[in-house]
């Protein structure tokens, strides 16, 4: 079955778009934020909500945003807060916004690439990552200011391109660059662990199992790692025809992994157990291990209008409804899909 049959389409974004985020703190609705990427027009952030009947996607809010939006993240404890990484000409920075009014500009560093929120629950810290630095910000919502609490330069040789905050340990953050994935301890601001890996595009902690990280790479596909054994991955998935842009564990069913490239989003089922050595050893001998891990591939939609209409591998699981995810095409179409039929039986 091709994707799209269950997909609910939102065509409200006028321009190309690269980022979509799940609004975690909104407990009553399944909603997402999407931001546009247009060099010349005024860019927008859309707050998109799934109607209660789950039949259509409604635009709940539309906010103009200065500069192109390269990344969006929603605050996990306040649905009105979100962060955006923007670029406008040569300047480049990150902002934390409060809906509906401007909340406050957190910084305006050059080449600020990434903002991370503590993934679960309330935490007054935010991490921002630029090419060579890691910043830990202390956020004061009432006074509308954010201050740099600590900072660490990782050196000129590494060009950090993103990161993930360990949901099991709020003192650990994983940042990745072209040649490795590095774990940093936020208390000491020291590197604690590193995995040698080429061309990492994205990384994601398993929200339900500690030490497990999935990485997406340009050429070599997807690898699953146990951070206690950084020398070799415990599992690998073939990935996509071209670069694998993004990877996300399902917030509830941690065996389900979504990965995306420019024309498809793939849904994978990983082997259920891996953190324990002995069990994985015995599993590998059983014939069921040879099962195809690919559950479904959600490909292009035919009514995209031009060549550049394609998924850019950006998508977000809904944390409220873990069987739903929203994906975003480069031409700005948002599609919400359900993976209910693929859920493993608990």
């Amino acid at each position: 079955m091709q994707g799209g049959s269950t997909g609910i389409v939102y065509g409200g974004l006028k321009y190309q778009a690269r980022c979509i985020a799940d609004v975690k703190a909104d407990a009553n609705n399944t909603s997402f934020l999407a931001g546009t990427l247009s060099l010349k027009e005024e860019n927008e952030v859309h707050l998109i909500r799934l109607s209660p009947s789950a039949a259509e996607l409604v635009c709940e809010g539309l906010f103009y945003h200065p500069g192109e939006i390269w990344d969006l993240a929603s605050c996990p404890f306040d649905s009105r807060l979100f962060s955006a990484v923007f670029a406008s000409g040569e300047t480049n920075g990150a902002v934390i916004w409060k809906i509906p009014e401007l909340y406050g500009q957190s910084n305006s560093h050059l080449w600020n690439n990434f903002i991370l929120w503590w993934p679960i629950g309330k935490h007054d810290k935010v991490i921002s990552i630029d090419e060579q630095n890691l910043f830990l910000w202390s956020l004061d919502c009432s006074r509308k200011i954010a201050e740099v609490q600590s900072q660490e330069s990782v050196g000129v040789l590494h060009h950090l391109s993103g990161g993930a905050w360990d949901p099991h340990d709020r003192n650990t953050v994983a940042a990745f660059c072209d040649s490795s994935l590095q774990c940093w301890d936020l208390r000491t601001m020291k590197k604690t662990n590193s995995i040698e890996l080429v061309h990492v595009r994205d990384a994601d902690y398993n929200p339900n199992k500690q030490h497990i990280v999935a990485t997406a790479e340009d050429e070599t596909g997807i690898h699953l790692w146990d951070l206690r054994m950084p020398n070799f991955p415990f599992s690998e998935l073939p990935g996509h025809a071209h670069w694998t842009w993004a990877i996300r564990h399902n917030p509830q069913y941690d065996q389900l992994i979504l990965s995306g490239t420019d024309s498809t989003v793939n849904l994978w089922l990983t082997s259920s157990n891996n953190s324990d050595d002995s069990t994985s050893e015995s599993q590998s001998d059983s014939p069921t291990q040879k099962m195809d891990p690919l559950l479904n591939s959600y490909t292009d939609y035919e009514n995209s209008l031009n060549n550049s209409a394609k998924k850019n591998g950006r998508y977000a699981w809904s944390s409220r409804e873990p069987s739903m995810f929203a994906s975003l095409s480069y031409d700005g179409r948002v599609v919400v899909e359900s993976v209910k039929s693929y859920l493993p039986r608990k």
Partner: protein
Amino acid sequence: MDEKAKRTRELLASFYSTEASTAGRAVPVSPSRVATLDSINSPSFDPDVYMNLLHVEMAAEIKNLDTDLQMLVYEITTNSSNNIVGMEANMEQLLEKIISVQSKSDGVDTSLFAKREKIEKLHRTRNFLRKIQFIYDLPGRLQKCIESEAYADAVRFFIGAKPIFEAYGGSSFQECKISSEETMKLVIENLKGKLYSDTEPIEARAEAVVLLKQLNFPVEDLKNKMLDKLEDFLLDFHKESKRMDHQCLPDNIPDSERRLIELAQDLFTKRYETIQQRITEQLSSEALMLALRDIWSDVSLMDQVLPEAALPVISLEASRGVIKKYITGAFSALLRYVSEALTGPQTSPKGTEEQRTLQTALESSKKAVIQGSMDCLLDFRHLLDDTFELVTKMRDLIVDWVQEGFQDFFKALNRHFLMLCGKIDIIKNRVNAAEGFRAEKVQTGLVLVLAQLSIFIEQSAIPRITEEIAASFSGGGLRSYEYGPAFVPGEICRLFRSASSSFLQIYITMRTQKISTLLKKRFMAPNWIKHKEPREVHMFVDLLLQELHGVGAEVRQLLPSGLTQRHHRTESTGSTNSSRSNPLREDKISRSNTQRARSQLLESHLAKLFEQKMEIFTKIEHTEESIVSTIVKLSLKSIQELVQLQTLNRSGYQQIQLDIEFLKNPLKEIVHDEAVIDFLLKEVTNAAHERCLDPILWRRRSSTSSSRQSWSRTRSRIPGK
């Protein structure tokens, strides 16, 4: 040089000069920024802002210089190959000199020849005189040996002198001969006495036999006598123990008999152990059978006198073990043989030599697989054909072992191949993985060889072996009633089929990874918003093309070009009603109709685009065309994605446009599927257009002339093209 000077001037100008030269640069920066850079001379000069801007600009410049540097390093490496050509001429001169030196030395050699001859003659005479002296001294010497019981020395001396006695014993040395022989007779008598005396230690007796044998004494008689004696001894012993048995209580087994049984069993176990040891030295099956028969006949003899030892049972058990070990040993030797054929000649891959080694590696490993397996089978057939009763009892077992052996052998071979690629079954070989995971760089050529070898095993080797097994190792097995035959060719074929395609995938990944690194350096490093007006095609184009030519050259050695398949594929791409994607698309069309009303024209236009997209990454086939085009497509796709991450100014856009324009023709020479290349290149320029702040097309005429210029430059740069 000229260009460099220009560039330096330009750089200086960009920092210090006023309006006039900046206009000459024609870098379209935002007006506010130009104003601030110029403000150094104006009253509103703000040093902080100015320094900031300068810093940013310098950073951009540094990045540009960095990329240029990398490209220059590449240029230097290409130049050094020219130096090597120069070296060749020098080497030829050297060779001439060496030849002349050699001819001179030959002259010296001939002039000294006569003298050397004389010296040699004198030397021979001296040796002869020494020998004569020895003969005359011999009788006395032998006598001395007897006195000191040094029989070994005596025998050695006598044998040394024997040829001379045979030649001249009738004449000059008669006296010597007679007296020596007298003495030797005494020696033989003494030795015999030693042999028969039970008091002598066994080593001394063995030594005596050896010495007697050296003296051509008929040892066989002695042996028979000895054996008779031993048998008498055993029989006596047996009778005696029987008698004792009757005398003792029935349940109390006499100690002596138990010990005898133990001794006999021990003896045969030891003999089987010796055979097992010999197996590791690659014994042939005939030799093995001979040895087993030998023991078996002894076992039967012993069994007649000592049935209580149950020797035949032990012996059957032991021979089973021996034969099984023999078969597994043969398979592991085969595995070693194949892997040596694969990796052996891979040590010096460079230039034209590589071409030879890749092919020879493939050919020799193909031969190793098929020939090795056939030899093994032939060898095992000898086992089965043997009429020896022990083996006939084990026929079914042997059939099973051979089948199992092949099954395990091919599985092990497959694992070995994966390990050679550094792509190990990660979980299973965790311990090995820790050591070798990325310890060494895998050679791309080897991966290709493995891909082809896997295909060969699947398509040729397995069917032949299956045939052979069916002919001589079929039926029988006890196992086959319950589980079916142990050798499952279908399973092995599947294993190698999937292995060969994953090897191709690994090859492509390795190659694209390298290209990706190149492209990333090119597109991520420079500041595209401050790009200078394009002067020429960027160096990365040359590098990319050279990489692709390298891939082509490597793949061509081993894989068929596969142009027929390509033709077939382009046809299917062209037809809008491909049977594969048809139902799918109809489904989509009908759905889209319900969703939105779009004109029929748009639909078909779109469908075409859609299908073309679907065809970009086709299944990888074992052909040169398929592999090279996949790598090209992946590279172009990477360029597109990288461009989409940048924001360009007009010059940056034009630079990309120029580079792409220039790539077009060479790429079409490499990949014959023009439609796809056109499509992907257009995607790149479209992406650049979208990401450009001020997209104005590069003038066509200057672009073509410039690209032609660079084309000729590249032609001269890439050797062999």
